[in-house]
């Protein structure tokens, strides 16, 4: 269950990036590949727990799951493959390079800007 540790790193990054400008984080989007070693469902479950008491409390998390894609070093063909069979889809060779599928990225943060918060507090 290292998803908790990864969520903590995520919140720290959100606070670094949005902390100065945001009053409240609404939406966070991640890109997670099957070879990142992170289980999206566990990440989604851990997220609200780690958010509690932070600027991201109550925000939605969206996870874009990517395919595993390889390019063959022998014949140059590209293929979408299973995470445990990174073989060329054309010639079957195992000498392939991973093009996508191991990413663990913070893609996007959507937040309410701080000026808003000031205005809202005057209403």
């Amino acid at each position, binding site marked *: *269950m*290292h998803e908790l*540790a*990864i969520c903590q*790193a*995520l919140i*720290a*990054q959100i606070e*670094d*990036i*949005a902390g100065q*400008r*945001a009053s409240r984080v*609404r939406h966070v989007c*991640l890109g997670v590949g099957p*070879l*990142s*070693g*992170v289980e999206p469902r566990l990440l989604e479950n851990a997220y609200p727990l780690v958010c509690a008491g932070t600027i991201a409390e109550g925000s939605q998390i969206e996870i874009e799951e990517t395919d595993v894609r*390889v390019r063959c070093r022998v014949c140059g063909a590209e293929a979408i493959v299973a*995470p*445990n*069979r*990174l*073989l060329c889809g054309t010639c079957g060779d*195992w*000498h*392939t*390079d*991973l093009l996508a599928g*191991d*990413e*663990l*990225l*913070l*893609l*996007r*943060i*959507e*937040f*309410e*800007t701080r000026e*808003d918060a000031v205005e809202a507090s005057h209403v």
Partner: protein
Amino acid sequence: MCETCGCTVTQTGTEDAATVEVMGRLLNANDRVAAHNRDHFNSHRVVAFNLMSSPGAGKTALLEATIDALKADFRVAVIEGDLETDNDARRIRAHGVPAVQITTGSACHLDARMIHDALHDLPLSQLDIVFIENVGNLVCPASFDLGQHRNVVLLSMTEGDDKPAKYPVMFRAADLVLLTKMDLSPVMDDFDPLRAEKAVRDLANAAPVIPLSARKAMNLEAWDAWLRAEVARIRTLQDTTSEPHEAHHNGHHHHPAVA
């Protein structure tokens, strides 16, 4: 560029809200500490190996045999990661080398910060090799770069030869796969070392696969030869490169590639 993590940040928005495109690695903070650890190792000409496996695959037994074989030629130390107890560190110290025990409590993996703290307790300037014995777990440790130069993954034959297909993230990260407890092969005839090797190749991993037994001293020479060759190779890089991030040139992959 974001000042804290170097990722690309662009902001668009309306009057009430903003969207920031980040495209940054989630484990950036860990990666930065790992790179720092690697700098520490490199500046002291120390080579670091990260040993990973499921619990009970024989990491400590292998280290005990390895220390005895290397002791005459290299100054070795061990960082031990376990949830509880310092039993493993005590086993290592009995072989006359320094060992630092990290007890992680409930944490299922070592991270770069824990290694950084442990390095403060090791006399790096008086060492040649540091072995990091990760927490026994085939899942979580694979996601965290520690600053090691090479990953060694152990697969004991009682676990089954399809483990690389079940845990692709871990076995894809391996620079070397050791098939351990091979002295049990007369009673474990359903384990096929060739099938295990094929499962590693199916992950597009060219890492050598070495069958051995630490307890019965079977084929330890092949492991010893690999270790010595990698130490020599990494030291050459440490001596010739002014940029100490030899194993960290590719920002996409957080595990050092086979050099």
